[in-house]
């Protein structure tokens, strides 16, 4: 894939100030996204995986410009999103759309299906009512809803159907990039497959590019071409889905994969100790060291660099990158003894 990337993120940082504390005290910050760079190519599905608080949603929000980054750039279609003026920004951004996790709160209960799906067209303007209706009917068919549903309200629909409406709204303006923020995790299990299949079909049909955010590695595996694993705002591992599943190199990815309760394979499981630490003032070195079964002295203070270990497979772990001679002399390569 040597094409031009559709969206490119360069060294993105997003910090949030923590509320509370006295006015004269130093403000604390949540480091939600820290030094993330990536490129997404047209037509692919890019997965961002991690647990709650890992910054995956913040990253997605920064991509679409809903959150202003504290550092770094988001370049969408060769335009730096945050240096554009207001009108250009809006115009550029409307080529990116989002599908939300909770279909119950993502549809305005006061809008009919027609109003919901045609809202983006209405905002852009230049459509007659007839055109809009035509297009909405087309979209309804595309996402597997009935024409009769046109003038019904969200409360009449089940979770899965609501999500279909959400998808129809997102694709109504023919966007290039669709960001799916946990599109199935709020739905009933038996509906998951429907929605995922619909997304896959739409991608083929409309030549969409997806950014697929999920906490569930199993879902991501079938859908995504490449995966980015995040933990506490940092990239842990990054590469093609095949490579990562065949050979997870980072201990965290390994744990995530083994946490999937697979029906078929009864494999040895690594269960991580401890909890996800608070994103306020995260660990200085490797952000994962407190829970890492292989943590070494050096992991505490020195952040692990993101290294390309295979072609298109990046890992940030000291176990792979190792330490230099001086550091080894100082005993930084010693395993931290964890009292079991």
């Amino acid at each position: 894939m040597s094409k031009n990337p559709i969206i490119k993120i360069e060294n993105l940082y997003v910090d949030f100030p923590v509320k509370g504390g006295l006015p004269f005290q130093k403000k604390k910050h949540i480091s939600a996204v820290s030094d993330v760079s990536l490129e997404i190519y047209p037509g692919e599905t890019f997965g961002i995986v991690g647990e709650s608080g890992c910054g995956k949603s913040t990253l997605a929000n920064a991509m679409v410009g809903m959150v202003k980054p504290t550092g770094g750039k988001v370049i969408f279609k060769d335009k730096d999103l945050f240096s554009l003026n207001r009108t250009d920004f809006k115009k550029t951004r409307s080529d990116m759309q989002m599908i939300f996790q909770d279909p119950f709160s993502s549809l305005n209960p006061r809008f009919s299906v027609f109003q919901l799906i045609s809202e983006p067209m209405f905002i852009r303007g230049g459509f007659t009512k007839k055109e809009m209706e035509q297009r909405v009917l087309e979209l309804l068919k595309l996402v597997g809803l009935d024409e009769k549903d046109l003038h019904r309200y969200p409360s009449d629909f089940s979770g899965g159907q609501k999500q279909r409406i959400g998808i129809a709204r997102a694709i109504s303006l023919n966007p290039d990039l669709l960001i799916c923020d946990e599109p199935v995790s709020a739905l009933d299990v038996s509906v998951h497959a429907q929605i995922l299949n619909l997304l896959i079909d739409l991608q083929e049909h409309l030549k969409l590019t997806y950014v697929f955010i999920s906490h569930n590695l199993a879902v991501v595996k079938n859908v995504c071409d490449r995966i980015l694993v995040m933990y506490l705002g940092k990239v842990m591992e990054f590469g093609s889905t095949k490579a990562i599943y065949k050979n997870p190199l980072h201990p965290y990815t390994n744990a995530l994969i083994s946490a999937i309760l697979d029906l078929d394979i009864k494999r040895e499981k690594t269960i991580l100790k401890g909890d996800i630490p608070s994103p306020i003032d995260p660990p200085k070195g490797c952000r994962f060291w407190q829970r890492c079964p292989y943590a070494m002295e050096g992991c505490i203070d020195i952040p692990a660099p993101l290294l390309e270990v295979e072609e298109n497979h990046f890992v940030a772990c000291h176990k792979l990158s190792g330490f230099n001679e001086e550091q080894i002399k100082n005993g930084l390569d010693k395993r931290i003894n964890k009292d079991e």
Partner: protein
Amino acid sequence: MKVLKKVLRKILNSLIGIGLFIGKIWKHKKGKIGLILVALLAFVAIFAPLIAPFDPYDVTERAAKGLSPSWEHLLGTTINTGQDIFSMLIYGTRVSLLVGLVTGIAIAFLGAILGIIAGYVGGMADNLIMRIVDIMLVIPTLPLTIVITNLFGKSYFIIVFIFVIFGWTGLARVIRSLVLVLKNSNYVKASELAGGSRWHIMTKHILPGVSHLLIMNTALTCAGIMVAEAGLSFLGLGDPTAISWGKMLAEAQSGGALLFGHWWWIIAPGIGIFIAVFAFMRIGLVMEEILNPRMKASSGIFKLFKTLNNTYIQEVFDGMNEEVLTTKEGEIS
């Protein structure tokens, strides 16, 4: 021409909206009472001169002071001035309703605008508005009203003004917290992503989202304001020339109604206040039920349980009974 058409359509739409809304209230038994009462009060207030049998301001010509209720004077006359109490009661509707409605609507406007600004714009504007709210909350309203009337003279204009200045704070707070919820909802986010301007989001999502709460609050504020107006008039802070129920009560007290046992002189304005406040309260409460069905559902369920037909329930239960078959594997179907 086109603009005019658009404006007219907007007005028509909102009128239809209000109509639908009133219909919703009308469906509730409680709401019906409220609506009927409000309509009645409005009728009385507008046609007061036609309904009232006497001129309530007339203190000169009547020698008959302190009359007991009779067919001529339905509620008797005042002891000290000989005014017709029934006519005063009819005219009192005007002040009560006018002050209540004007204040209520003004508060709704101010509270909604400031609440939405605080919630939606956020940042400095939010900070400023919320600090003002905090300050308003600690200033005692009634004493300040007294001070202001002392400074600028007594009139209903001043009273309405102070009510509005102090009344918006509560509403703004409620609206603000709802706006914060709406603002962070995914559908607003989706709208923003599609390029929706602030204006679009404000008018299409936020304002309709708070409208129910706004109307409910306005009804309840109207009720509260009418009580407060009666209190201020009772203290003699209203327009000294106007006739209001609160002032009637004060006159009854000072005029010796208590002493001479003219209880109707006290009861009549009291009932006036009661009916007016009650009507608006009812509408407000029905709105609250529509907004917040969980709280009222309880009594409905209990009533339902009382009326439920036991044999029907038994039938439902029995209908679920079924045989369980036992077979060997492979012999199925």
